[in-house]
């Protein structure tokens, strides 16, 4: 029973590279061909100094997101675990996932951002909660920009004098992250940055 690529089902050939040996890196769950279809965002391509995005939104990423979020293939949480771990493991900050509305959580059956972090072995804290269950993508771009408050601070949230990093799957206009950031700043967070898997 050998492992197969989670995206194309071809058998995976496991190789023990020095990185995997010395730094204890995880075995990949997708094959090199599938991996090569994702495009990293280079430093000069980052759209905002406050938001660090890992990948571009290309055809392969569109398919990935469709299968992970829409088809609810939760096992795909592992696909980018190494990249997410590399981006966050030595960072001294409190990691805050963008929350999901409980209704949405029921239909999706899992919290897709939390699962990405769990797969990467990154501890996180929920400080925000989603107010409206309305989906982001169902609104037009201009509608999204002037939309009402999406989040509020959780009642038991305790803001410390430390750096915070918000985590989301995709950044498009940046409105979601801006709103979340404003709430944390207002509550006394000294610095708030963001990491997203994808730059739309």
């Amino acid at each position, binding site marked *: *029973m050998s492992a*197969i690529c989670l995206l194309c089902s071809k058998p995976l050939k496991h190789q023990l590279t020095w990185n995997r040996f010395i730094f204890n890196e995880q075995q990949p769950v997708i094959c090199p061909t599938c991996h090569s279809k994702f495009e990293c965002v280079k430093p000069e391509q980052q759209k905002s100094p406050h938001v660090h995005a890992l990948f571009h939104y290309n055809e392969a990423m569109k398919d990935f997101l469709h299968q992970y979020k829409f*088809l609810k*293939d*939760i*096992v795909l949480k592992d696909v980018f675990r190494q990249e997410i771990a590399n981006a966050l493991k030595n960072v001294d900050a409190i990691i805050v996932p963008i929350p999901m509305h409980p209704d949405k959580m029921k239909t999706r059956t*899992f*919290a897709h951002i939390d699962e990405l972090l769990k797969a990467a072995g990154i501890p996180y804290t929920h400080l925000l909660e989603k107010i409206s269950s309305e989906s982001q993508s169902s609104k037009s771009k201009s509608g999204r920009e002037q939309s009402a408050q999406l989040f509020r601070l959780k009642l038991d949230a305790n803001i410390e004098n430390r750096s915070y990093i918000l985590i989301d799957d995709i950044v498009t206009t940046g409105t979601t992250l801006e709103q979340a950031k404003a709430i944390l700043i207002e509550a006394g967070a000294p610095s708030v940055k963001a990491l997203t898997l994808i730059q739309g």
Partner: protein
Amino acid sequence: MRKKLSKLQSNKCCYLGTLENPSIRDFLTGRIWLRDHSPYSEEQINQHIQLGFISNLPGVQKLSHTNYICNRCANKNPTLFIKYHCAACENYCVYCRHCISMGRVSSCSDLIKWIGPAPKKSSNHPFTWTGTFTPYQQKAANELIESIKENRTHLLHAVCGSGKTEILFPAIHECLKQGKRIAVATPRTDVVLELAPRLKQVFPNTNTQVLYGGAEIDNSYAPLVIATTHQLYRFENAFDIIIVDEADAFPYTHDETLQQAVIKAKKSSSPIMYVTATPSDKLLSQIKKQQGGYSFIPRRYHGKPLPVPRYDTLWRYTKRIESGKLPRKLINWTHAQIQGNRPFLIFFPTIALMEMAIPLFQQLDFNIQAVHAEDPDRKEKVLKLRAKNVPGLLTTTILERGITIPNVQVAVVGAESGIFTSSALIQIGGRVGRSFDCPTGDLVFFHHGISVEMDVARKEIRRLNQTELSTI
């Protein structure tokens, strides 16, 4: 709802709540469908369950401590089940990855089936085909009808270009006349798209559904379904006859769950009709074991022999293309086709090599294009070739079957590569000389050393051409 009321008023002996909704009945009959994805409301479905018209079963069932089965696709491969903590049922759930592209099936999502009264069936199916059969075709068509009457499995072994689709027409008509439900299933979407308009044309009054990944779903009951074998996962106990066209094509032969899907989609006593130009030994012995019917058509409908491939060396073609140059022989061959205004197909063993070659070919003629399995414009490009808007196409094995282009000339680059099995090579050769007006054409295997598969293919083509014509 309004429909139901008007029916009630005209039929006073019935009372509200015991009649089935005809739309739900027609849609669900023979299907096994994700409850959450059905076009009907929860309330309507619940009502039909209470009336005993719909049965409800869990999507994934536990067989033993570590083993599960997907009730839609029958997958049992443990590596394709994922267990996780599910927020919907607040418990551990298991889902099937094998059929996930059709909407996820999990242990907390239900599947529904129709167990109520059957839909009204029509036996009025006008058949408007006006063509004539060769004696070989006529014999095979009669044998197929014979097998349908006897309810036995049948193999139609017909060489490429023998007009096998037409041979199916009388058999399909026979089934429809008897009020039977019939599926024509094939592993390839291209073949579905090629078959559908031809069948709709000869059965103009028959409600026909065409199902493939991404196709619109309509809610009616169709006695004739043309589908990819993959789509049959969504049927159960539905068909009185299933015709599996291109039965030897990938992935059907390699995927046992697809073969299972065909068996599950048909009624238990229903026969399967296999149609192929290149039956595997396994299929031949299976038919023999089941004492099924067998028809063999060694001749094309125009009576001319199959084109025999010629071999030509193309030493180190990979290196040459990698270095940005096309081998001289390939340039000459392509030039000759362009000069002669003959459409051409050039088969490549890999997408990677083809993508390196396409800019080099476009230096010969800017309009030459390439197609592969994931190409969304594949259909349009083939149509352009047929219309002579492009001089030729580079392709992977995806175009090995199902397409007919008058006077097409074919070259295989790297015919010795593993992907070109003897049956693939026979299918590729079958593209040449199909039309009555142009019954011949060039078929060249460019190679870096002759493979066993190449020789098997050539021998088989010669054997078919030499088969006695007097066996009728």
